[in-house]
């Protein structure tokens, strides 16, 4: 069973056993632009993905007129 990463409306499936950071880089998601959470808790990106993990990614980048 793969691990699932969710960013806004998109879902990505990756094999378990790799770190969250490796999964993000493989999906071309810049680690600096998201905060990974598991079961509602922030986790660091060195965490190894477990079988069936669901990782929700909080997008952190905002922009527009001046970013205020």
């Amino acid at each position, binding site marked *: 069973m793969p691990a699932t990463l969710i960013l806004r409306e998109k879902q990505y499936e990756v094999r378990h056993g790799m770190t969250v950071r490796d999964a993000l880089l493989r999906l071309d998601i810049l680690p600096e632009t998201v905060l990974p959470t598991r079961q509602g808790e922030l986790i*660091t990106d060195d965490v190894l993905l477990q079988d069936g993990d669901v990782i929700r990614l*909080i997008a952190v*980048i905002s922009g*527009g*007129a*001046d*970013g*205020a």
Partner: protein
Amino acid sequence: MKCRKCGATAAINMRHHRLALCASHYLEWIPEQTQRTIEHYRMFSLSDQVLVAVSGGKDSLGLWDVLDRLGYQTAGVYIGLGIDGGVRYSDQSLARCRAFAGARRLKLHTVDVPTELGASIPEAARLTHRGQQKPCSVCGLTKRHVMNRVALEAGVDVLATGHNLDDEVAVLFGNTLSWSTGYLARQAPVLEARPGFVRKVKPFCRLMERETAAYAVLRGIDYIYDECPFAEGATNLTHKDLLNRLEADRPGAKLSFYLSFLRARQTGALLLPGAAEAESDLHACVTCGQPTTAPGECTYCRTRRRIHEKREQRSR
């Protein structure tokens, strides 16, 4: 990964600081860092009245929370831009600011742009053809004007905005690409007061966007998560993306770029001929009295007049 302070499971790792912290130590670390920035750049003191510009987003509400916890005398100002975008964006933003202020018994000033300007921000951009299909230009212009006016009317000592390191570095990068020396001369953590201009400060200028977001999440601040409907494709998002690619490869690159720029600016290593003269050559707008670079009306008042003229033409 373990928290460097207590050994508990870390909630966040900051590669550029080589520092991982658990939730409770992170919630202490952000106010400590903010206080260091306030002191380092001599932004304000506990006796000053601070007006915090809030949008309902993670940065501005996070900043207001931190300043309140540090014991500063704060009030907020929210500028309703009249942006709907199919998600009632401005209404949702205002609701979050009101809930935040209400829960902490803090004063919130609110300004409704459609009432003041005669049009919502998207309408104003369409009517005046500013910004090439994007309302970001008229939005920035309006926010700067209104924030300054409210701050002056409220008689506060300083206006604080939630600009973070990523915002500052993206602007610096853009102005460096175009070598806009006038803008480079004005970019700083503190913009001193001048006649007609309130003092402006950016206490989060050394914190990454990821760090301010983590603070808002861990503190349980209900901020507006959705992006402004008009932000997609904005130039500063392209710059942020490029800089984050650099940061992923070289942790600390963004902070180093920003701090090196500030040092160069302070020591005079950046030669900006004419910038100082342009700064001092200001006139009072004949309509609103706020300072403007050209004699006559300021850009905000010209924009407002054009909106009213367009409306009159259409009603004939």
